[in-house]
């Protein structure tokens, strides 16, 4: 199971720090039509990606959408939202309406009211906060585990490598959704879901989200770990690492200054595509009753609607689905564009 992972890919792209020299110094590149010499000063790597990105209108649109979600998510941390999501405007369901009964234009009613007469609009916006929390924290957990294990396994090799390979082979042999569900079940069945959160403020923010975050974060590091391990194995024998070692650098600086920056593209792509999975799995967990219980998340709104829908109450499910759909669509496409823009094998090729 491990052979195909080890540097099977023998692309000859130069490491990122050295490519400007590589291109200028090597005359054969002039013959290749696809490779262009840098016209003036060599562009920096992020700058180049940004330029490539900016030319693509669709990618920019997706970027703007994700940025709007981020903004709304950050705004929804304000206490105003905590109040608004529990305000009852009517006895029970009301379909979307432009005006309130007394004739004012009232945004709170634009997307209808839920079973307790609470504004679906506010609750959907509040869902952004939950989604933001889930995606960011889960990614941080998953990425840090994946990066650390991947780098250690790839760079040091030996028995550490064997143990880490065993660990990720085992974890990846369990279907991911099943593992997330099992972990969420196990954490949830403990009487105190936030058992490691002692602090009151942390409890207030993370309280209901802990199960979801832990279940996904502790299981989703496998793919990244495998990718980074493979990449590090390729990188560790490169000349620039040998040069760094010859200059007397220790393992720490080599790993974090020279090798880690060369794996950033993997991290960014994993993050953007991983976030899609987290938002979607939250819906599944909410359906199973393992998700967020005390706050309105998109998953809970859809789950609530499973009985409402047959009674003709369509707005809550539709709004929550639309929020998820737009975000996931933007993230999916952004992830694809990022992969194209960041993949070293596609560099210099104008697609």
């Amino acid at each position: 199971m491990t052979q195909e992972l080890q540097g099977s890919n023998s692309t000859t792209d130069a490491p990122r720090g050295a490519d400007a020299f590589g291109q200028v110094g090597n005359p054969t590149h002039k013959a290749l039509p696809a490779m262009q010499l840098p016209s003036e000063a060599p562009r920096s790597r992020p700058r180049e990606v940004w330029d490539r990105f900016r030319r693509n209108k669709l990618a920019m649109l997706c970027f703007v959408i994700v940025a709007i979600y981020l903004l709304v998510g950050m705004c929804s941390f304000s206490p105003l939202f905590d109040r608004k999501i529990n305000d009852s405007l009517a006895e029970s369901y009301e379909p979307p309406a432009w005006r309130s009964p007394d004739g004012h234009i009232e945004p709170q009613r634009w997307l209808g009211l839920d079973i307790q007469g609470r504004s679906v609009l506010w609750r959907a916006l509040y869902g952004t906060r939950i989604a933001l929390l889930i995606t960011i924290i889960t990614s941080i957990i998953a990425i840090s585990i994946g990066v650390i294990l991947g780098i250690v396994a790839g760079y040091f090799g030996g028995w550490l490598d064997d143990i880490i390979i065993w660990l990720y082979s085992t974890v990846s042999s369990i279907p991911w959704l099943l593992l997330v569900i099992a972990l969420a079940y196990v954490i949830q069945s403990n009487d105190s879901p936030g058992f490691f959160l002692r602090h009151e403020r942390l409890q207030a923010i993370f309280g209901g989200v802990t199960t979801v975050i832990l279940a996904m974060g502790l299981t989703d590091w496998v793919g990244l770990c495998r990718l980074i391990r493979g990449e590090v194995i390729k990188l560790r024998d490169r000349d620039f690492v040998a040069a760094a070692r010859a200059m007397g650098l220790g393992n720490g600086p080599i790993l974090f200054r020279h090798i880690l920056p060369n794996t950033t593209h993997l991290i960014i792509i994993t993050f953007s595509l991983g976030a899609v999975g987290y938002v979607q799995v939250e819906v599944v967990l909410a359906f199973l009753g393992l998700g967020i219980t005390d706050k309105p998340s998109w998953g809970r709104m859809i789950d609530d609607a499973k009985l409402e829908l047959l009674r003709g109450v369509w707005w809550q499910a539709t709004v929550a689905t639309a929020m998820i759909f737009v975000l996931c669509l933007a993230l999916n496409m952004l992830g694809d564009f990022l992969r194209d823009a960041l993949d070293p094998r596609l560099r210099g090729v104008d697609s």
Partner: protein
Amino acid sequence: MWAYVVRKFLLTIPILLGIVFLTFVLFKYIAADPAVAYAGKLKSPEEIEAIRHKLELDKPRWINIHEACAQQSFWPVFNSQFFDALRFHYPQSIRYQESVWRLFARKAPVSLAIQFPVFIIELGLQLAIALYVASHRGRPADYLATILAVLGMSIPALSIYMAAQWFFGACLRWFPVAGWDTGFYALHFMALPILVSVIMGLGGGTRFYRTIVLEEINADYVRTARAKGVQRREVLLTHVLRNVMIPVVTNTIVALPLLFTGALLLERLFQIPGFGALLVDAIGDQDQPVVMALVTVTSIIYCLALVATDVCYAIVDPRVSLK
């Protein structure tokens, strides 16, 4: 060749052990005591003790030294919870009062009845669409398929299931909203879940196979065949399709165990008493033996299928090195 197969399976043993170990630790150390949940409000210590005995929670977790010492022999050492898990011996289901394995045997065929037709229809459609789309690369059909695939992958599955249930079941009344029946009458209830699952799975698979077909379609042998005057259609259906079958076959093997386990949300939502619904119910009922057995057994079968895939890949594709 045989050396490769044997080695492959030997390498899997630590992973299988790892799966059992991991799930065991999860359920025995992190999860709450199922006996307490089972006893509910009427918990005198004696009753809880009786339940613990029934759920075999009174055995030692790892090795049973007490019994071994008492009986003056070595083998009772293995009479512990961990070795029970290793032998796939699980306590009875709390809710059904029935052996976990018998439960599986009853539920799995129901899931299979849904998943097998889905799988066949889906595979056929995915391949057909992928072949068509890849041979019309860059044309409107290609863009349309890609766009639809991305759209489909971005909508939560639950929403699609519910929308279909509402639209076809409640509005148009073409199919029953949910339910299940025995024997031939099940067909009536199977139609809608199958239809929805096929639609759901179409996007991702088509996209995946399109990439594979594209890799093949630009290969030299295709150009040669075309240059010799073979019809475009014939090249696609004989030369390209045959080479594409390698990843298709390997993908199929990985998917096979998942056919038995069914779809969690789908089965629960359409009230199909299958494997997936069993897991959902077991989670709701805190039926820990069933959840644990389900997770472990499914993972182990999945893992074996992965190995079988590797082996098949080596058999089918001579380019794979057997090192």
